[in-house]
């Protein structure tokens, strides 16, 4: 576990900074809620004036703002879904790509440790860091629900929402890790992978626009874990769970296979 502990020590500061910022955003959005809940009628009229496409993109069609959980799921699409995924991507990037570009990989790989063991421990570090972020966010979200959610809330939907976000973050980290391992050179990895994450996010938005574009939803995990839809339906479609399973199995398998035979130039 020495690689895991070393990696955790190196990354814990950045995990805590990200967690603090996202928690602050959560609390900020929560603080707006009481004033919004008071003006539901005004908000509903405002929504009706907005283009239908816009509402569809953000899943705001027929949305009930009197419900705090609905509200949190909507605003979370930016700071939990997207920013949380950016956090997972950057962390995954750092663990392999940065080690190669900053040439510290040589130190680790010249030690008596199997590459599969290194990758397992790095994956464990990614998993732990994502769990820390999501657990703290979830905890604060729970406190917000208890404090502001005067009329009670659907616990099942709440936990399902957070589980879907956790799976999304883990899958994005897995995907980015796999891409960085497969890339021979690490010079442009950051822009390439972060760009890919944004493309997937936009793809999820486009897939909600028309029926014709609906097929795109199968190609982006952001749709699988679309918080607004999940809270609205109270369930996650089994097909997306299967796709998640396939995505994570494939990326993990590719990562381990490629990394065990990869030339390390750093």
């Amino acid at each position, binding site marked *: 576990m*020495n690689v895991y502990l*070393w990696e955790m020590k*190196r990354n814990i500061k950045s995990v805590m900074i990200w967690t603090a910022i996202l928690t602050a955003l959560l609390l900020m959005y929560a603080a707006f809620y009481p004033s919004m809940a008071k003006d539901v009628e005004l908000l509903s009229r405002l929504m009706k004036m907005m283009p239908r496409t816009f509402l569809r993109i953000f899943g705001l069609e027929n949305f009930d703002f009197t419900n705090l959980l609905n509200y949190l799921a909507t605003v979370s699409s930016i700071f939990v879904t997207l920013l949380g995924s950016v956090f997972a991507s950057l962390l995954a990037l750092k663990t392999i790509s940065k080690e190669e570009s*900053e*040439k*510290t990989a*040589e*130190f680790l*790989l*010249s*030690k*008596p*440790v*199997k590459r599969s063991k290194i990758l397992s421990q790095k994956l464990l570090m990614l998993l732990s860091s994502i769990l820390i972020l999501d657990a703290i966010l979830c905890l604060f979200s729970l406190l917000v629900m208890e404090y502001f959610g005067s009329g009670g809330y659907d616990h099942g939907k709440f936990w399902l929402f957070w589980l879907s976000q956790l799976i999304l973050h883990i899958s994005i980290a897995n995907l980015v890790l796999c891409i960085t391992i497969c890339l021979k050179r690490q010079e442009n990895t950051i822009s390439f992978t972060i760009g890919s994450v944004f493309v997937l996010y936009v793809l999820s938005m486009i897939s909600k626009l028309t029926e014709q574009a609906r097929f795109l939803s199968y190609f982006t995990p952001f749709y699988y874990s679309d918080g607004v839809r999940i809270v609205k339906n109270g369930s996650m479609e089994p097909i997306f769970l299967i796709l998640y399973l396939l995505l994570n199995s494939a990326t993990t398998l590719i990562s381990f296979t490629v990394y065990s*035979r990869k*030339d*390390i*130039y*750093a």
Partner: protein
Amino acid sequence: MFIIQAENLTKYYGKHRGIIDVSFEINEAEIFGFIGPNGAGKSTTIRIFLGLIFPDSGFARILGKDCIMDGFEIRSQVGYVPGEVNYHSQATVGELLNYSASFYDCVDPKYIDELCKRFELDRKKRFRELSTGNKKKVAIVQALLHKPKVIICDEPTNGLDPIMQNRLFELFGELKSQGVTVFFSSHILAEVQRLCDRFAMIKDGKIIKIESIESLRKKNYKLVRVQTPQKDKVERITNAVNVTAEDSVIKFEYMGEIEELLKELSRIQIENIWIEDPSIEDLFMYFYKEV
């Protein structure tokens, strides 16, 4: 059994040449130099031995084991000093050494203390605060702390001051007497001559010569410059080749007994004299001619 063995190692980076058909063997308790200019293929060869990169063909063996198949077992017996030292910049020297030690069984903390003392290493300092020489010292200590049977170094003296270079050479000497095998790359001929039992020369990815230092010494290849008004007498020195003149300074290459050279020079009216070891390029030219 050879401790280190390269057998027809070939590695290409896409279309670019890495090394071609590299073969050599290193015996137990031998200090083996690997010399060549930048980009010749020294680091590529070393990286293959460490399992950092994979050869296109050929075999690399350490302690009789294959560097690809048995990399894990091999690396527990090997200490590696990189040419360019890049460790985690935020970590302190102490943390880096502890991390390095955590990969091995039964590391003696007293031995780490001893090494740190020997190389005057401050364990409290952060890695990013260190000079190039001090970074190199960290690389040396982390490579030796588990008492490896084989030491592989990529230009180990690069950045070290002469005092530390001396201490490193002394340490290599002591380790050799304990049966440790040292394989190191360099482009400084003088350190190879001083330290090694044998050396291999690599150029453009190919081994051009493997020779013992003893035989190199016997050849006594020197570059001589003499400031003298008697150019004709210099040209007549036995074994002097490639004689060229620049004003009153006559330059020539000498291969033979030093005593004979001094005897012949004593018969010439000399205003100034410089006798130098050849540069690595000069030596390459010499071996090229010989090959």
